């Protein structure tokens, strides 16, 4: 076949070339635009930073003036401040308490600052980026709309509340509040908000913001925030008494009223009221607060959306102690090997390894050259257990575990030290009961029940479950065999090893234990129906104090309450009721300790292990401290400063 180059072919060639060249030129033009834009943005950023610093120094001046003013009013001779000025809270000396209810003590905030000041640490530098890996993809990080721990993590850096838990002492302390007054009867909390507290756009935090957040955001039926409503369900009313004074009234006398009020995030009304509920419901990263970090964009048309990395930038006009790290980046890597490779390639500073990875790396000299493997117990760590069905299973027959002796025998039968050593690689410790031992709620005197097979056999005999024939199985007087199902969530190797071990131990003493693996998505409905003999998983909490009503009260047996083991104990119930109404912290802890003892004696759960936090930290991260609350990112600094994370 002969091809001749005709005019038609020529025209076609020219057209194709023209399209290609113009495409190329348009790309070049785009690049030029982009470079220009980048320059403009950079300049804008510098201007914003300068503005932030000016705002800060203005604030500081205003506070100094106020101090001088109040000192002069009292006739005191003014002297230069020697306490570092900026960190002090509210006017000293003649504090204005006209906002408070008379006759009730006012608690003023201690000077706000870091628990461990990064500027005093060795090699301190400003700037840089801290990169942390998330194991799952958060879908939404908008306040009160997020649904996972990742969303909470982001919100913690951006949004603040009136108070917070001290990361080390676990005491509730002032944050946005300059002072508060708690009703000795526990029915109200009156708060004076700090004068210097500002949102990241420079507008002050007011009492109206607190009320609006609760009444018109959280409890707005059109905003899909119902998941968070139970967290503040003790609040009856929020009353604005002045620009900076707010009173929160409670429904009933309860120990956690103050926590509920103090820990509720405060959102800027002027920002969020611009959006319709539908815009908030469909938003992915609409977030603004008064915290040390902020989202670079709060424009609803340019908000963060998955699967982008979540980037937080330092709030340059932050009212509190200024963090050193300029940017925090959260990067999602779901596969555990990819996570580890990202970390060992030094493209991330902070990651959560699997137990096996941690065990392998913790003593690896090559790894220790550039990073550390940290393990510590804190209140956010979970504890695993086996819950025994003490009531009728799914409304039917009583299980053998309705007898305390049988439950105790099961605890004696399971060698938790062995599981810890052989399955969990010593990366856990024994749990004793319903409260995480790092919390003040846990009774430190309680020791785990020992591993004692003979004791277990004796207890089973005593409860009427004896070996009566050559089959070797234990039966009761009616001749029914001791058999039960152990339900567990599948997909985790160490859980599978653990339940297999339990099955073997049971077989050893003549109990028929059948393993029942389930899919996690059906867990809730199994619990709701009380459709199990024994079930194992783990509880975790993010707060130092939890309300035991949910898990242990008799009222939680009814309906779909979370006392799914149907444990009915009058003594414990009375203690819970008493503890809930005890406002004094020390007194209440005594009640919780007593409750811990009762639960330990009766063993409705066999507590297995407490899980620590296992984390890999790059040596670039400075001032990394392990706290009982977890950690405090705002204290970190990045060695190597700006752009410290290695470029891939």
């Amino acid at each position, binding site marked *: *076949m002969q091809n001749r180059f005709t005019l038609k072919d020529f025209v076609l060639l020219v057209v194709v070339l023209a399209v290609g060249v113009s495409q190329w030129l348009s*790309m070049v033009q*785009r*690049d030029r635009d*982009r470079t220009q834009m*980048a320059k403009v943005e950079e300049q804008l950023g510098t201007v914003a930073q300068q503005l932030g610093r000016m705002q800060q120094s203005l604030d500081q001046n205003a506070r100094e003036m106020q101090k001088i003013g109040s000192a002069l009013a009292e006739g005191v001779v003014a002297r230069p401040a020697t306490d570092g000025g900026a960190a002090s809270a509210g006017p000293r000396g003649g504090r204005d308490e006209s906002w408070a209810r008379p006759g009730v003590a006012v608690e003023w905030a201690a000077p706000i600052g870091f628990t461990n000041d990064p500027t005093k640490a060795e090699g301190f530098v400003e700037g840089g980026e801290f990169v942390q890996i998330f194991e799952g993809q958060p*879908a*939404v990080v908008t306040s009160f709309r997020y*649904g*996972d721990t990742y969303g909470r993590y982001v919100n913690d850096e951006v949004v603040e509340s009136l108070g917070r838990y001290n990361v080390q002492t676990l005491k509730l302390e002032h944050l946005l509040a300059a002072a508060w007054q708690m009703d000795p009867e526990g029915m109200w909390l009156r708060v004076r908000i700090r004068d210097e507290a500002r949102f990241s756009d420079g507008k002050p935090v007011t009492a109206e913001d607190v009320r609006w957040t609760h009444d018109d955001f959280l409890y707005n*039926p*059109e905003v*899909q925030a*119902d*998941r968070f*409503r*139970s967290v503040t*369900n003790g609040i009856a009313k929020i009353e604005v008494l002045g620009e900076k004074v707010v009173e929160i009234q409670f429904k009933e006398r309860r120990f956690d009223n103050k926590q509920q009020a103090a820990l509720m995030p405060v959102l800027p009304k002027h920002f969020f009221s611009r959006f*319709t509920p*539908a*815009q908030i*419901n*469909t938003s*992915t990263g609409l977030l603004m607060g008064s915290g040390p970090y902020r989202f670079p964009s709060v424009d609803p048309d340019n908000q963060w*959306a998955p*699967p982008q990395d979540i980037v937080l930038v330092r709030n340059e006009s932050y009212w509190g102690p200024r963090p050193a790290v300029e940017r925090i*980046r959260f*990067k999602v*890597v*779901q*596969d555990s*090997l*990819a996570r580890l*490779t*990202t970390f*060992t*390639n*030094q493209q991330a500073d902070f990651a959560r390894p699997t137990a096996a990875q941690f065990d392998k790396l913790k003593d690896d000299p*090559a790894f220790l050259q550039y990073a550390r493997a940290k393990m510590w117990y804190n209140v956010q760590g979970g504890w695993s257990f086996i819950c025994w069905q003490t009531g009728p299973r*799914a409304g039917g027959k009583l299980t053998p575990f309705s007898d305390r002796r049988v439950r105790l025998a099961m605890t004696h039968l399971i060698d938790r030290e062995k599981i810890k050593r052989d399955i969990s690689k010593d990366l856990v410790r024994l749990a004793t009961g319903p409260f995480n031992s790092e919390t003040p709620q846990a009774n430190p005197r309680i020791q785990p029940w020992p591993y004692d097979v003979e004791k277990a056999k004796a207890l089973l005999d005593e409860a009427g479950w004896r070996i009566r024939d050559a089959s070797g199985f234990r039966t009761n007087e009616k001749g029914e065999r001791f058999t039960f199902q152990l339900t567990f969530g599948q997909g985790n190797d160490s859980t599978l090893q653990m339940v297999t071990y339990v099955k073997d131990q049971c077989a050893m003493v003549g109990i028929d234990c059948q393993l029942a693996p389930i*899919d*996690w*998505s*059906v*867990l*809730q*409905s199994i619990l*709701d*129906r009380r459709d199990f003999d024994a079930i194992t998983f783990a509880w975790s*909490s993010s707060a130092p104090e939890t309300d035991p*009503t*949910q898990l242990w009260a008799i009222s*939680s047996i*009814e*309906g*779909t*309450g*979370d006392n799914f083991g149907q444990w009915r104990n009058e003594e414990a119930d009375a203690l819970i009721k008493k503890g809930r109404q005890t406002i004094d912290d020390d007194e209440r802890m005594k009640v919780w300790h007593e409750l811990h003892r009762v639960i330990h004696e009766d063993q409705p759960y066999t507590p297995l292990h407490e899980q620590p936090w296992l984390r890999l930290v790059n040596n670039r991260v400075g001032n990394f401290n392990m706290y009982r609350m977890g950690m405090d990112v705002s204290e970190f600094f990045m060695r190597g400063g700006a752009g410290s994370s290695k*470029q*891939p």
Partner: protein
Amino acid sequence: MGTYVLRRLLLMIPTLIGITFLIFMLIALSPGGIGAALRAAGGSMQADVGSRAIQEAYLEDRYGLDSPVVVQYLRWLHRISPVKFGERAQILPTGEVVGQPRAMREPPMWRWFLNELPPEPAPVALETAPDEKNGEARSRAWSLASNGYARARSTYVASRAVFEQRLGDYAKAIGRGDLVDYRNRPDLGALSKLSPDKNSPAWAEVEKAWDATITAYRAGLDARARALGVFEAQLFPQVGLPVIPGAVSVALPDLGTSFARGRPVVDLIATALPVTLLLNLIAFPIVYLIAIPCGMLAAVRQGRWQDVTLGGVFVALWSIPTVWAGVLCLGYLASDQYLGAFPVGGLNDKDAASFTFLPTWGEMGFERGFLLDTLWHIALPVLCLVYGGFAVLSKQTRAAMLENFNADYVRTAKAKGVEQKTIVFAHVFRNSLLPLITMFATVFPATLAGSVVIERIFSVPGMGSMVIEAIYLRDREVLLANTLMIAAVNLLALLLADILYALADPRISYK
């Protein structure tokens, strides 16, 4: 041909309905049911005891989970159907589409207390319609009315949930615990057949809860009448085109909002699909460009070492599991402990947003730019997508070529002295292409589906990870939208394959 295509297209509608119905039922009948996603999302196990029933009632009301499964399916079908019945929806200035305010559900067991339900009040017409030009005033009028209705409705839903709990207590008190499920909700149908036992100790609580319920119901009806009044004033432009005004209209399908992620499904697909398409549209041509020439070579050199080697290598590649290959790529090619030549995951560098599009040589030296950065990032995932695909395609080419080599016309061509090159390319290869074309039509839908394993290992946020997460969380809307999309594309591709057959082979015709 035209009627054939039309018939096939029309037949697709019942097929699609059948497929989606099957998926819908599978989700509904699976353990945990449709609501499992809502309860399990985020693994949150903490919930307040007292408000649990109320919270569930809110969720059920919001997503319509309290209706029978078939009704839920029909509602879904109506949403995705381009043909809509009833009043047209309106579009607010914010871009939000609002339909007619939903009807109130009648309170349960009302026959025990009333002879007839309070009548539904007529829509309250707006006293002064906001100014045509004042968009803000109109938005305000709407948000006031719709917020008012939302508040009234949620109060009603909550009091109804409490009322049902009290009925559960009551049923237990009169010894009919068998009518109550584990959530303490009674079987209302069975309970309504009994006459109320007003002497029961639980009755006082039932009556109290009923009073609250009926009050909230009345308030809800009034609020709805007001919202309906604003809706009917048609303050905003309407969606779609009317066919019979007020009754039938045509509008775009609405895929709904993801339960677990709280975002419109269209948005989710719009972020995930381009990623998957990018990977597959690069991978598929590579597979074709390598496999077809190799298949040809193998056919020409049938039985010689080239044929044997290619066959052996391709089948060996084909049998390597993707999980293993992915992990090896990551461990050896991406990890700095070994080669470290490729990025670990993701689609772009973290600073990609500040890159120029094209590579540049500036003061900082060579910068790769967005284009090269993307290609570099997708190199490993594309490699994993590609290597297994050679075997099937090259074997197919080889077989088709060999069949043609033995055909009479090739012998004739050889006999009359046509060059070997011309025989292979002009005669045999062109005739062997037919099965490859039709194969492409059936393979194409797979490009939309994405690969779960590869996406997970290389942290690529594509369709595969979206769907697998939706399955874990029983995210009905995402699953149905995805099923619908894949099924429709599959059916269209099959139709396309049939048409291509007819075009390529004159012996086939459809009447």
